[in-house]
């Protein structure tokens, strides 16, 4: 039986380890998934390629948590997005959660990102227009990354995927684990 989000969180809460460490790890792992998903979706989705077509080449974007991370930096190269590394590296725009709690709420689908914005839990560092472009790109990635019941919770207007998009979603899921493995090796070689 699939555990509900609340049950899963209850279990996480009961783990007798440093709570901050657990939250940090959870967000860090989520960033790895998001990074890998960005790479795969940007490879497979026409819609995503169209969305980032206006981005300047080598634009670097980041997502992170204040004050000590984790962070992830992504970069647009040609018509795809790649992970640069875990950390902030000359980013032009960054989405910053004010604390780990806020990030955990969003990444465990307890709160939508637009609700987090409206509750001042996320701030933008950098150009506002770039932030909006990143937000739309992130929404496309989320569309292919999360199951429909989560999309129904986190989107103002939940997307309804076409057959073609469902096939892409399946391909993203299939490619995600190898992509995570590649990402892990890539990050190992950097650090």
């Amino acid at each position, binding site marked *: 039986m699939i555990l509900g989000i609340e049950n899963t969180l209850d279990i996480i809460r009961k783990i007798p380890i440093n709570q901050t460490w657990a939250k940090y790890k959870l967000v860090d792992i989520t960033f790895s998934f998001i990074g890998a998903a960005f790479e795969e979706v940007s490879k497979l989705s026409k819609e995503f390629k169209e969305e980032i077509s206006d981005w300047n080449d080598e634009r670097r974007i980041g997502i992170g948590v204040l004050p000590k991370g984790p962070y992830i930096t992504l970069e647009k190269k040609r018509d795809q997005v790649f992970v640069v590394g875990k950390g902030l590296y000359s980013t032009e725009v960054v989405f910053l959660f004010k604390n780990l709690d806020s990030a955990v709420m969003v990444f465990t689908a307890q709160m939508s990102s637009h609700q987090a*914005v409206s*509750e001042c839990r996320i701030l933008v560092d*950098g150009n506002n227009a770039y932030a909006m472009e990143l937000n739309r790109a992130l929404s496309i990635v989320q569309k292919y990354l999360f199951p429909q019941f989560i999309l129904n919770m986190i989107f103002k207007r939940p997307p309804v995927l076409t057959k073609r998009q469902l096939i892409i979603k399946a391909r993203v899921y299939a490619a995600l684990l190898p992509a995570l493995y590649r990402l892990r090796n890539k990050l190992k070689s950097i650090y």
Partner: protein
Amino acid sequence: MLPNYYQYFCPVKILSGKLAVSNIPYEMGLLGCKRAMIVTDKGVVSAGLINNVKQAFSDSDSEIGCIFDEVPADSSNIIANKIADLFKKNNCDCFIAVGGGSALDSAKGGNIVVSERTDDLLKLQGVDKVTANLLPLIAVPTTAGTGSEVTKVAVIYNEDTKSKMAFMSDKLYPHIAVIDPKMTMTMPPKITAATGMDALTHAIEAYICLQKNPIDDIFAITAIKLIKEYLEIACQNPKDETARMAMANAALFAGIAFSNSMVGMVHALAHSMGAVCHVPHGVANAVLLPWCLEYNLDKVPELIAQLSPILGDNKTYSNDKDQAESTIFIIRNLLNNLNRITGLPTKLRDAGVTEEKLQAAAKGAINDGAVLYNPKEVCFDDALEIYKKAF
């Protein structure tokens, strides 16, 4: 109903009423200041409004160190740097911004340059990037719309990157807002109408957008009531001091409301309309407001419905949707009345917009941060559709 979480902050001291301007030197003393720099524009000077401020200093031991009256329609980083240079050269210790949104934003920009000790504003754009305690800023609005006198926002054009920089920080709140009816008395009827509709848009968007909170709701409702009662009077009879005072206060309340609650898609679409087609902000807001409310109708019918009695509708309704439609009807009526009284455009084409520019404007609108706070998702096609309806 209370939101799960909200934040509220407004540290601005408000002086509102007849001869409020006369109290500026005394208030400067309380702030520990003796020598003020006035930031204004040529229009304010030629209307003689700056003399009201000068006069206030005639029997005071505080003084005006210098006057900068070259604020353009859109404040820029170059202007902010000029203001900062002049401020330092004249050993001033506080700013008095007299004018509309641009004068206030220019003073805020100059203040950032002086207080953060930088000439590169680009590094400080964004949320909470301005962290230094800024020097005292006294805001004296001469229009009743922007609400800049009580907001933590400054929008400054970057001449180098050719883009608008938005600064948002609690440090950007002016120390004092001076609301004196004498200062808005010379505003022409059409600008009174446009700025009044701007204030109405601030209040309505603050009331329906995602970041709404119960404190701002009070300010928004009060602002809407005042605008409903006094905007047409202020346009018909510009010398009506009561109406001017009410509208200045309405803009102030609406400003407090949206500074915390933020705005939504009307502002996103209006900002882009301003950037692409140079439509004045208040005019764009006025034209787009009813269409955007209609767009949001299915998402927040109860909130839009709650505005109808505030706008003077005494009827009872069996459901929220009908009542919300009545709210939109009243706003359309107000817009049509203002069109009759002042010539305020009711369609984008009457404001000089050409149809081929709508696509570019829609593209800009969805890149505006305000759409994030709109109750309903807005994509390119939605924005374009609304522009076409309002065209």
